[in-house]
């Protein structure tokens, strides 16, 4: 333990891991990764996997935008142009949703962080965890083979009856989504059990970091909603293979039933995508403002509230599908209730930043961008939840812009913020702060340039999923395309900054940001066993004992000088003395 430049009190810092302790280097060879049961390695493999999936789907998105640069379409030409366009946007959507957004934060960052934040050695079921990863890989293989076979042109929603009659490889793709669903279920199940049974002594529910609350809420949705998607897709496969006549009107089936089944999963899935992002932002805002999180319990409860309310609003995707008027009104009203817990979170984040001492680090830049973009995304959702405006805006670019503001401006930006925040912990390297901030700024501007014009396009009547458009929309579409290129550049800068840090980065201290949660109490990167002995837990947002050690450029925990007399009430109670466990 090295001494810092702050002499007062007893400085604690876990130091650096030895090579045989470091989880990245403690065993070698490709097999030691492929068959690892270490949640951190599985998290890293997920991280690589989802980034590759994101790159593929992102390139498809760029293709779409470049094609739309001209009213007649710039890329796909000839008689098959519309078909190709359909396949490209379908694969973009399906890969982004099933292979990137859903597993991004829970599976990649969650796997790495949940046990470490809990001070546990691993998740409750390490083999199941590895199994989920390989299910993810299998699902990805199915998607790739669908792409190679005859493509997919149904849209990521697989609506019947088109999906039962389309010539493209619907069965391959839905099998892939089915398998990915089970990957997601097992991850969620693992996290619920881990958080329930493996919290260290002293960590009561309300001493958990908010990321864990968000992960817990996400896992509840994963466990409760995904099986419904599983059976829906299975029935769809049976429908295509045997014409079972449940969804196919040709055999007296009901296509709207498919939509109900599908959105019963897929609306909660939207919260699978955004809830973990909320968790990341809660932690980021508090740590980089060096201030206790405002309204801890409200943020925690609102995560659970979102998870539960999210199950009651699926009908708002189907206002134009011919539901009864009373049903649509009820779904519309319920949709508005979801905005309450989301707004609670935003207000609490703003209140946390108020009078905090904000460090504009890269993660904080992303967090601030998130609040801005998510607020726009959330508020435009109200227009779509309102029956009257939704009839006008349904299936237009307004919808496209809305969910990209939530999914990209929300989840992706939070994911990037989280990756930049925990990168030093994951790989033990500091990246170029300047480069990271540059990436955040480019992404912010590129994103807004891409999707703000789409709100205008949509409200003027540009329908989504069209390969060509009226020339009057050309100006806005071109703005959007240029924005998407800028967004691509920003993401590339972020990638380069991170990759560069792996080779040239400075060695990261255990606590580079001044966080108080448990993961900053082990070395960077953590040893393969995480903690030698179960750590004793204090308040995850109490920064009073954390001070900057300017000499070694790190934050350290400073224990105040203690009197010998035990009556002088110690700073942290020992574990067995706490009643609320």
């Amino acid at each position, binding site marked *: 333990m090295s001494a810092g430049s702050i002499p007062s009190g007893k400085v604690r810092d*876990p130091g650096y891991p030895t090579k045989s302790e470091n989880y990245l280097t403690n065993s070698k060879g490709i097999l030691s990764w492929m068959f690892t049961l270490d949640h951190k390695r599985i998290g890293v493999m997920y991280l690589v996997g989802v980034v590759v999936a994101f790159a593929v789907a992102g390139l498809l998105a760029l293709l779409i935008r470049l094609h739309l640069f001209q009213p007649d379409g710039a890329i796909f030409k000839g008689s098959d142009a519309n078909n190709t366009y359909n396949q490209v946007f379908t694969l973009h959507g399906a890969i982004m949703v099933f292979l990137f957004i859903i597993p991004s934060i829970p599976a990649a960052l969650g796997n790495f962080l949940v*046990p470490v934040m809990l001070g*546990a*050695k*691993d998740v*409750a*079921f*390490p083999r*199941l965890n590895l199994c989920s990863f390989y299910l993810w890989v299998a699902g990805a293989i199915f998607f790739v083979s669908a792409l190679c076979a005859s493509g997919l042109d149904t849209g990521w929603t697989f609506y019947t009856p088109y999906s039962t009659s389309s010539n493209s490889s619907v069965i391959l793709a839905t099998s892939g989504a089915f398998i990915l669903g089970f990957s997601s*279920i097992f991850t969620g*199940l*693992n996290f*619920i*059990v881990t958080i*329930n*049974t*493996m919290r260290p002594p002293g960590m009561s529910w309300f001493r958990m970091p908010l990321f864990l609350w968000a992960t817990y809420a996400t896992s509840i949705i994963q*466990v*409760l*909603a995904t*099986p*419904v998607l*599983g*059976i829906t897709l*299975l*029935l769809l496969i*049976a429908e295509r293979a*045997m*014409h*079972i*006549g*449940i969804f196919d*009107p040709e*055999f*007296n*089936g*009901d296509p709207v*039933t498919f939509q109900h*089944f599908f959105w019963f999963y897929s609306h909660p899935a939207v919260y699978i995508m955004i809830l973990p992002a909320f968790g990341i932002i809660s932690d980021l805002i508090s740590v980089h403002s060096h201030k206790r999180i405002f309204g801890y319990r409200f943020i925690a409860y609102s995560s659970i509230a979102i998870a539960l309310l999210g199950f009651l609003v699926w009908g708002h995707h189907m206002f134009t599908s011919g539901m009864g008027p009373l049903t649509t009104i009820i779904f519309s009203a319920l949709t508005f209730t979801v905005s309450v817990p989301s707004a609670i979170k935003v207000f609490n984040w703003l209140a946390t930043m108020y009078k905090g001492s904000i460090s504009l680090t890269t993660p904080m830049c992303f967090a601030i961008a998130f609040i801005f973009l998510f607020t726009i995304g959330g508020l435009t959702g109200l227009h779509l939840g309102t029956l009257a405006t939704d009839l006008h805006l349904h299936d237009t670019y307004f919808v496209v812009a809305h969910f990209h503001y939530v999914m990209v401006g929300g989840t992706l930006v939070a994911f990037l913020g989280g990756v930049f925040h925990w990168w030093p912990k994951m790989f033990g390297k500091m990246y170029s702060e300047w480069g990271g901030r540059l990436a955040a700024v480019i992404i912010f501007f590129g994103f807004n340039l891409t999707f703000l014009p789409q709100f205008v396009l949509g409200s003027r009547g540009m329908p989504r999923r069209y390969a060509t458009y009226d020339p009057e929309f050309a100006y806005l579409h071109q703005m959007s395309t240029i924005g998407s290129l800028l967004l691509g550049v920003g993401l590339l800068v972020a990638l380069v900054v991170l990759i560069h840090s792996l080779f040239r980065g400075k060695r990261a201290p255990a606590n580079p940001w001044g966080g*108080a*949660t*448990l993961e900053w*109490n082990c070395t960077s990167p953590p*040893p*393969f*066993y995480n903690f*030698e*002995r*179960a*750590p*004793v*837990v*204090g*308040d995850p947002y*109490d920064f009073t*004992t954390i001070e900057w050690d300017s000499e070694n450029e790190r934050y350290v*925990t400073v224990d105040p000088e203690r009197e010998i007399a035990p009556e002088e009430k110690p700073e*942290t109670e*020992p*574990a067995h003395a706490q009643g609320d466990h």
Partner: protein
Amino acid sequence: MSTIEAGPETAHSADGHDHDHPSFLAHHFDTPEQQFDSGKLGIWLFLVTEILFFSGMFCAYAIFRMLRPDVFEGCSQFLNTKLGAINTGVLLFSSLTMAWAVRCSQVEDNKGLVGMLAATLSCAMIFLGVKAIEYSHKWEMGLLPAGLFVYDPANPHPPRPAPPEGPWAIFDPAYWTYLDYICAPFALIFVGVVIWLIYSLVTANKFHLAVAKPLTVASMCFFVGVGLGTILESGGSESHVGEHHAGEAHAAADDGHDHPDGETHESGEAVAAVIVEPNTNEILVVGDESGNKDETAVRQRLATDSTNSGIQSEIAARQRQSSVAGTSIVTEDAEITGAIEKVESEVLTARQAGVFFSIYYCMTGIHAIHILAGIAVLVWLLVRAVRHDFNRQYFGPVDYVGLYWHLVDLIWIYLFPLLYLIR
């Protein structure tokens, strides 16, 4: 937040492992209780996902039963209540043996544990054997999901190809019945297990013998189930009477079905009605209701302008919709009138009965897959039980599989009345 040194009782050695961990305790758990609780919570959550997985099909059942109660009533006559009841009894008994197995593992009665697991496995196999008879019987009759439905009420039992001649002809797949196809993999498994049993007898390997014996009994039980099913299916005349009743009733209703054209012409107002699907029993004369007549005419007139592609495609869609619904009306002039009329008719068509059998096959089929998965984990438990893996402190896996098995049983308890009993 701080990391205070914990007491020596929780201290771990340098590699993060406790060397005083018992062998059954995974390295990341502190106590056997923690491990057991984790597993228990995990399996309960898994059961929740299973219930939600089946919930989709229960929803579909409810929706379609609500839409077509007559179809469900008519078609459930084809399900043999006796076979269903036998299977219900078998599964209930297997739940008893499974619960008993859990008890045996808790009190370290290893012999009892192996016996109870074998009994559970045997029940599962009997269930599948009876199910094989049910399925193959319906397939022979052509009672299949909507797209494959070929049942003919006039000829419910289509003749099979001539029975094979010659000693080896039985291996010619051309003559196989559906039942043979279902039985083939189980017969292979049975033969394999018997060979294993003989091998372990010859080599006098006690462990292999202890595993192979119960497995032989269990895999034989499949054929017990098949035999039981065959006896009940052929001897149980009651169900056949009901079935023929149903057949006759539907044949009677079929008379009305032969004249859909007449029905359409009676309803009259369409200029030229083209029956797209003669098979259909619902005749839909689609058009706007008479109050909207003017609006339709306006739309048709607007559609003559080639720039009004929206209205053109809307009209095209309406025509396609009505053709899919059964009947398409093609008119020369711009007048489509009439109201939707429904003609009640027999239910034994692909589009009607097919949906019932689709739901029947989906629900029972996925249930049967769960039985198969249960068999796989039971075999795994059996091997571990023979290996004496379980003790007072470590009986979690038996408990978890038991819970799973009870759920599979419970789902059948719901399927049986919904599909077989409610008429």
